[in-house]
């Protein structure tokens, strides 16, 4: 939520810029957006019609670049480097940060080896520095680095832009969560009713026993 608040203004700024420009001017704006150190979401920019119009033009590679930053990873860039513009250092850094977010989507425990392979990092020290300085300090990820087990335990990861097929599964998960919560509430209500009933029965039983004791005492006296 903090991330979203931080980048809300940036998104608005870039959306305005993109809406007011067309064609080749969009290329520089896209490069600026993908290099910005505080911006990790690009679907709003992608949704602007001017950007969509880049498809099939000489600047379509910038549209692909924006799509890569919205949904892709560093490995995807390496595979498709031929059809994408060269990245500057800031863009490389951002893409690697977004790669960490994508990896965190699939698993909460990320082994160092897997991370080093995905991020093209040669040693553990470099990887840990990257995770701490570029990911945790920028607030996109929170977690614990376990040097003994050589893994990164992710406690929180900021959300990336949604891919088209993701919405359905999200809705399904939310529905499951809702039904679990509803069932839990029903169970709790049933237990409350049961506890009340048992308490009433218990009181009734106690009263019967006390009455019987009084009767016996009277009989004895």
């Amino acid at each position, binding site marked *: 939520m903090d991330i979203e608040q931080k980048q809300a203004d940036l998104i608005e700024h870039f959306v305005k810029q993109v809406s007011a420009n067309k064609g080749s001017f969009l290329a520089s704006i896209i490069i600026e957006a993908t290099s910005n150190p505080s911006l990790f*979401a690009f679907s709003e920019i992608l*949704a602007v019609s001017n950007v969509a119009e880049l498809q099939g033009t000489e600047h379509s590679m910038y549209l692909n670049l924006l799509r890569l930053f919205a949904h892709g990873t560093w490995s995807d860039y390496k595979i498709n480097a031929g059809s994408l513009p060269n990245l500057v250092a800031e863009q490389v850094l951002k893409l690697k940060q977004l790669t960490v977010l994508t990896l965190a989507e699939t698993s909460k425990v990320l082994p160092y080896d897997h991370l080093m392979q995905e991020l093209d990092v040669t040693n553990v020290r470099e990887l840990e520095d990257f995770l701490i300085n570029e990911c945790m300090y920028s607030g996109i990820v929170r977690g614990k680095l376990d040097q003994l087990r050589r893994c990164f335990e992710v406690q*929180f990861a900021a959300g990336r*832009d*949604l891919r088209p097929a993701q919405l359905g599964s*999200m809705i399904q*998960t939310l529905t499951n969560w809702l039904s679990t919560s509803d069932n839990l509430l029903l169970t709790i209500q049933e237990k409350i009713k049961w506890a009340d009933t048992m308490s009433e029965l218990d009181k009734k039983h106690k009263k019967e026993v006390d009455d019987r004791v009084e009767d016996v005492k009277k009989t004895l006296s």
Partner: protein
Amino acid sequence: ENSLLRQVSSLLRRLPAIESGKFQDDFLMEYNDTLLVTYLAMLTNC
């Protein structure tokens, strides 16, 4: 609203909160301990 969708996505990624064998062991042990305390209390009441 893309911002909301991203937040929801981030939230759903956190589920389940804990999922490990060790946690299950500790949780069940705590469960058993509490049930044992309850059992002992019933015996005491009797």
